[in-house]
């Protein structure tokens, strides 16, 4: 509600000055409540569906011939990229998790990339979205650990090779360290997306404010930043997927 008010104020201040935070605004498209929970269909929801649609189009079109077309090559490269990364870290023991990791990677990658399109909405620039994803990963990895090792998974929190009197301090630290995983995972993705996109919007604001005469410098800057942002969008999706696989590996093979 506060955000909406701020948005309104920014618009009142004059349509020209772009509020860099405006792009993160959630707007209800179809209000909808269920048992006191506001589950409205919002612009964020719309873009989540667009992300799924783009992923599906990318992954399902383009054919599946023995000798691949160019599109099919890119598609298969993406697939192999994730599969190879998983093989390197997890070996063959983690094949069951490939669909999950691949979905995660594609969803985040496409969401990050679509965020570069002007007037779009970046799903992953909201901490609650990245945190939910990270929490799913965290719960999944923890569950896998307990299913695989039973109560023995708790040994994960007992550092080896330290004197017993240090354990009362070290075990809580290890536990907290374990619980930082979803936080660092989600904050990293969210902060990268938000910072990059805010910066782009700020420069876009400069371009508009300085007009044709002075707008070239920030425009050049914007082009350079966009290149960097594409890299960051990819890198963050990759990092998220890699860390997910590392956490799964820790759970399956039990080492930190």
């Amino acid at each position: 509600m506060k955000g909406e008010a701020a948005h309104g104020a920014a618009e009142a201040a004059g349509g020209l000055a772009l509020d860099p935070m405006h792009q993160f605004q959630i707007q209800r498209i179809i209000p909808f409540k269920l048992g006191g929970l506001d589950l409205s269909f919002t612009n964020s929801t719309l873009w989540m569906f667009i992300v799924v649609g783009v992923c599906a189009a990318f992954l399902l079109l383009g054919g599946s011939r023995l000798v691949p077309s160019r599109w099919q090559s890119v598609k298969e490269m993406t697939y192999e990229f994730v599969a190879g990364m998983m093989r390197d870290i997890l070996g063959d023991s983690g094949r069951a998790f490939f669909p999950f990791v691949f979905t995660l990677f594609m969803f985040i990658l496409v969401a990050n990339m679509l965020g570069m399109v002007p007037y779009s909405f970046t799903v992953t620039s909201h901490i609650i979205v990245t945190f939910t994803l990270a929490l799913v990963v965290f719960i999944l990895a923890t569950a896998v650990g307990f299913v695989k090792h039973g109560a023995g998974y708790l040994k994960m929190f007992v550092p080896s090779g330290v004197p017993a009197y240090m354990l009362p301090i070290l075990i809580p630290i290890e536990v907290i360290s374990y619980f930082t995983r979803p936080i660092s995972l989600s904050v990293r993705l969210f902060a990268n997306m938000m910072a990059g996109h805010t910066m782009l919007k700020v420069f876009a604001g400069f371009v508009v404010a300085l007009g044709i005469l002075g707008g070239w410098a920030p425009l050049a800057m914007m082009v350079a930043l966009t290149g960097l942002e594409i890299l960051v969008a990819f890198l963050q999706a990759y990092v998220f997927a890699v860390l997910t696989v590392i956490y799964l590996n820790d759970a399956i093979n039990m080492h930190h």
Partner: protein
Amino acid sequence: MPQLDFSTYASQIFWLFVTFGLLYWLVVKKVLPSVGGTIEHRRARIADDLDEARRLREASEKALAAYEDTMKGAREKAHGIVSEHKAKITAELEAERTRIEAELAAKIAEAEAKTREAKEKALKELDGVIGELAGEIVARVTGDKVSEADLKKAVEKVLG
């Protein structure tokens, strides 16, 4: 910061689960069979082809080695036969040559003997002719008749 507007959280979490679940379902049901299947199929095909190439290469290697072995054997055998024949022919030639040489030598010796004989006979006849000729010459020059015995003695004395 719109990100801290808690009133939007329920909606975002809910729809995130819906859309992520949808994408997960699509990946499992559609993408894995098509993309993963194609890649697996291709990889198996390439691996098969490579194995086949490797196998064929080894087979040809073996065949080539066998071929070279056979060739080497044949060459040695041919070489043996040739040298054997060569030796035989050389020996035959040698024998023929000696035979012919011996024959020639015999013929030459015979011819020489005949010549010598003829020469001696001729010389002997020449003695008589010379004596007669000398008697004739003496008779014409001196008018004397020289006895045959004297003539013979004189000729023998001159000829020696």
